[in-house]
């Protein structure tokens, strides 16, 4: 009897200890309450007594030698703080990868809108007038403004050949592959610049601290990148530099590296004036001066068999890095690794170069080089399908990777390979076959009716099309990147007995606070809303690496999961019991703190033994795993105005595990729209190396009225090393839309485009060419 009673009470306890479940559940977004009430304070919302307004005086030419700086003697310079390169206490270099970019130009101008002089004044209007009263005298030199000119190396901007980085990835016997091919298909593809266009412009606030250091708050993605840059610029030890992220109104990569420059500028003005200094860019300055997506130019040669088997791939890609190295080598690397698409190639040679030009440096933008090469290879898959007379989805189906297949870097895909799953689900959900056939019939019938004059003169001549794309996207840093980063994250207990996340990962809209709270809350058996998340502050969080590369949930979330599990084990061991809710957790936590003192558990990234990468040969496991996505885009093209309207989007994306399905789908929808904008609308226009459409009237991003309904299908093929199976999400949706848009336009118009954005001008030119 006694025995059975014990068993019964155990059963009862197990039943009552119902743990709050939050992973996989759409809890209300924790960051959002302050954002919908206006309480969230972005940098420009902070009220700082005695603050000075900082402004940047920039070069107006793309290349030249600085002869002198002229301050208008008629202007009243009282109350101004003026900074130039001589005021940099440490090295006049933006510390990132290669130290070639000055914080303030001293002698050479290497791109238009390069920062030369900084001004600060208590009156925002006076400082604005001050900028107009400074003249930079420059002896202009002939600039290099295109990738072609850079490659010709007539003018040397960098090294012997103007090449920042060169990557070659070879696998298999290429010559034999081409020799065995029934058909060789060649093509050339181009993409332009794209602006991240976060709606909150770049903004920083710097102060000189009483301890002789600098403290910076601002809109940024990577607190420790800024921290490192400031240590170098001011020759200060780590503990004298503090960087705190404020609520950030979007990043998309645009606040990965450039904030280091603005932080240094604001800090230099604060250092010299002894007063807090705020630098808030306006839209024109942000668009003209800050980083953008690298333009690219791909040439592809593919050898295929008649049944669609892919035997040989040669993909040569050139990207425009702009005037300084910045992140270009890493962008190129991701682009090169993705250049084969999610397909089995018998053999491949990928040759990638990023060149120097006299344009503002290009940098990180969602996808980080992969959207460019995936655009090219996906367009090329459609060319191959057309050449073989195969349905584009069928060609992809015959070649898409499965578990056990090998990528161009020689990586064997061991697990979590969702290529076929997303392809089949997207094809079915979008009713691909039926629509592809119906649009072809309807377009043909409309053409016949128009020729026969059976259509009213005033009727719009509209054609329909549907296009398909399949991509994969490596999650986390490339190759040995995660090993070098050696990210750390921690969970501790506050004196009140609440769990607190300590990580440098920033919330920039994607829901970091909610995700981390869900992961830690789940592991600790408390509701997500009970978990506190420390605002990233280099004084009190460990370096979790940058908030980039779709790594926040998978890598840092994984570390936090480990930390939380260890905390739970420690507390359970101490209490010899568990807890049912937040109140129970707090009771145990407080008893622990009283008896044992503070509790903080920190974990660092450890390379899984099976992941091996050779950086010299560019061979091995480029990523722990890949996410996979398929998209079907339907368009209508007006044959008279050449305008393309996207009517509907269906996409299936393998994310491993959606920790928060609503936020996950939100990432996919947002990324997809950025991809549609890149494909159709967004074009940075240049004149003499300067952006001339640096305003929202002429640089157009999609508004709601031009955005189609999106059907997002979350596919979950769990990754054994991600928390609950999660893989990267953020960047992947950017890769797929553009090639699918061009394929849809091709079905609608019969014209093959190979360059984006497919503006009405480009579509019209293609249609006129087709008619000639």
């Amino acid at each position, binding site marked *: 009897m006694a025995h059975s009673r014990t068993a019964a009470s155990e059963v009862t306890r197990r039943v009552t200890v119902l743990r709050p479940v939050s992973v996989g559940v759409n809890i209300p977004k924790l960051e959002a309450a302050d954002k919908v009430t206006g309480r969230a304070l972005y940098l420009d919302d902070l009220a700082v007594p005695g603050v000075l307004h900082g402004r940047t005086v920039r070069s107006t030419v793309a290349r030249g030698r600085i002869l002198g700086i002229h301050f208008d003697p008629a202007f009243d310079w009282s109350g101004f703080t003026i900074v130039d390169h001589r005021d940099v206490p440490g090295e006049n270099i933006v510390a990132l990868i290669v130290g070639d970019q000055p914080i303030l130009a001293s002698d050479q101008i290497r791109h238009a809108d390069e920062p030369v002089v900084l001004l600060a004044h208590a009156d925002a209007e006076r400082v604005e007038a001050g900028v107009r009263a400074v003249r930079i005298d420059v002896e202009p030199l002939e600039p290099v403004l295109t990738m072609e000119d850079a490659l010709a190396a007539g003018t040397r901007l960098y090294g012997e050949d103007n090449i920042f980085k060169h990557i070659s990835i070879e696998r298999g016997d290429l010559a034999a592959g081409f020799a065995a091919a029934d058909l060789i298909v060649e093509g050339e593809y181009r993409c332009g610049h794209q602006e991240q266009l*976060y709606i909150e412009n770049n903004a920083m606030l710097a102060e000189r601290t009483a301890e002789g250091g600098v403290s910076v708050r601002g809109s940024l993605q990577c607190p420790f990148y800024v921290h490192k840059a400031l240590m170098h610029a001011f020759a200060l030890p780590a503990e004298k530099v503090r960087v705190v992220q404020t609520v950030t109104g979007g990043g998309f990569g645009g606040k990965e590296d450039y904030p280091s420059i603005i932080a240094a500028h604001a800090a230099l003005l604060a250092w010299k004036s002894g007063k807090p200094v705020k630098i808030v860019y306006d839209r024109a300055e942000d668009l003209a001066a800050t980083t953008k997506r690298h333009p690219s130019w791909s040439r592809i040669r593919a050898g295929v068999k008649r049944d669609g088997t892919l035997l040989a791939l040669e993909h040569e890609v050139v990207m425009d890095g702009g005037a300084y190295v910045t992140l270009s080598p890493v962008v190129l690397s991701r682009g090169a690794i993705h250049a084969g698409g999610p397909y089995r190639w018998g053999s491949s040679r990928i040759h990638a170069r990023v060149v120097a030009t006299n344009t503002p440096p290009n940098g990180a933008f969602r996808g980080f080089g992969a959207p460019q090469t995936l655009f090219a290879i996906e367009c090329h898959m459609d060319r191959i399908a057309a050449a073989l007379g195969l349905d584009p989805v069928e060609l992809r189906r015959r070649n898409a990777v499965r578990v056990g297949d090998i990528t161009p870097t020689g990586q064997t895909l061991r697990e979590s390979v969702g290529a076929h799953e997303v392809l089949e689900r997207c094809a079915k959900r979008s009713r691909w076959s039926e629509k592809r056939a119906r649009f072809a019939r309807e377009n043909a019938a409309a053409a016949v009716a128009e020729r026969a004059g059976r259509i009213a003169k005033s009727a719009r001549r509209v054609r329909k099309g549907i296009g398909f794309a399949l991509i994969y996207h490596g999650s986390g840093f490339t190759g040995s990147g995660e090993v070098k980063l050696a990210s750390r994250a921690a969970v501790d207990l506050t004196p009140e007995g609440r769990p607190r996340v300590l990580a440098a990962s920033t919330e920039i809209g994607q829901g970091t606070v909610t995700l981390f709270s869900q992961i830690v809350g789940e592991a600790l058996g408390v509701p997500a809303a009970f978990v506190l998340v420390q605002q990233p502050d280099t004084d009190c969080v460990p370096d979790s690496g940058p908030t980039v590369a779709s790594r926040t949930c998978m890598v840092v979330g994984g570390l936090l999961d480990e930390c939380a599990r260890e905390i739970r084990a420690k507390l359970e061991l101490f209490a010899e019991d568990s807890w049912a809710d937040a109140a129970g957790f707090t009771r145990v936590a407080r008893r622990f703190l009283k008896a044992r003192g503070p509790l903080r558990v920190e974990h660092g990234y450890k390379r899984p033994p099976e992941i091996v990468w050779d950086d010299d040969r560019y061979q091995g496991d480029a990523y722990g795993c890949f996410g996979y996505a398929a998209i079907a885009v339907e368009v209508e093209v007006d044959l008279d105005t050449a305008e393309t309207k996207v009517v509907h989007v269906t996409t299936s994306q393998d994310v491993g595990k959606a920790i928060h399905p609503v936020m996950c789908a939100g990432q996919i929808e947002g990324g997809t729209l950025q991809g549609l904008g890149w494909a159709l609308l967004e074009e940075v226009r240049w004149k003499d190396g300067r952006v001339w459409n640096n305003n929202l009237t002429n640089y157009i991003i999609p508004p*709601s009225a031009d955005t189609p309904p999106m059907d997002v299908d979350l596919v979950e093929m769990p990754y054994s090393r991600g928390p609950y199976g999660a893989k990267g999400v953020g960047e992947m949706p950017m890769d797929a839309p553009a090639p699918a848009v061009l394929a849809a336009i091709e079905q609608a118009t019969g014209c093959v485009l190979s360059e984006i954005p497919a503006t009405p001008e480009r579509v019209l030119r293609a249609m006129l060419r087709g008619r000639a």
Partner: protein
Amino acid sequence: MGERIAVRLTVNGKAHRVHTPPLKRLLDVLREDLRLTGTKEGCGEGECGACTVLLDGRTVNSCLVPAVHADGAKVVTVEGLGKGGALTKLQKAFVELGGAQCGICTPGMLMSAAALIKAAKGRVPSDPEVREALAGNLCRCTGYQRIVDAVRAAASKPAARKVARKRPPARKRVPARAAR
């Protein structure tokens, strides 16, 4: 900074009198003079809609409205949406359905959405209607789908929502042990 004039305006139900250059932007009057920083600036040229407020019940880009133009007007900003710290149905829908990501466009987006819901007088606007009504508010994060969903959910009749939320009739509870 030149001549100043007195401008009287009611913001979120509260009367204010500010001395300001007549051409100072309403956006700056709100943010600087009244310290209502919920209204954001995204472009300063009336393209992005982040600074949208209601001026006598109509949506305006406050970066394009000179202070003198707001004299005698009733202005509502995002801070004036909820009452006593409670979220409105619209704000709640944005939080629950994923309508806010980075949040910088959200205040302006909410003002345009509130104006649409008011104009719809209890009718739930269609998906394309919402997209058209919000076309002046740019969002770079969401792809708009969840904003449209949130606005439509908030516009649905409270009665209908109550019905939907009503619990199903209580089932007879059978103790698990007894059943065994």
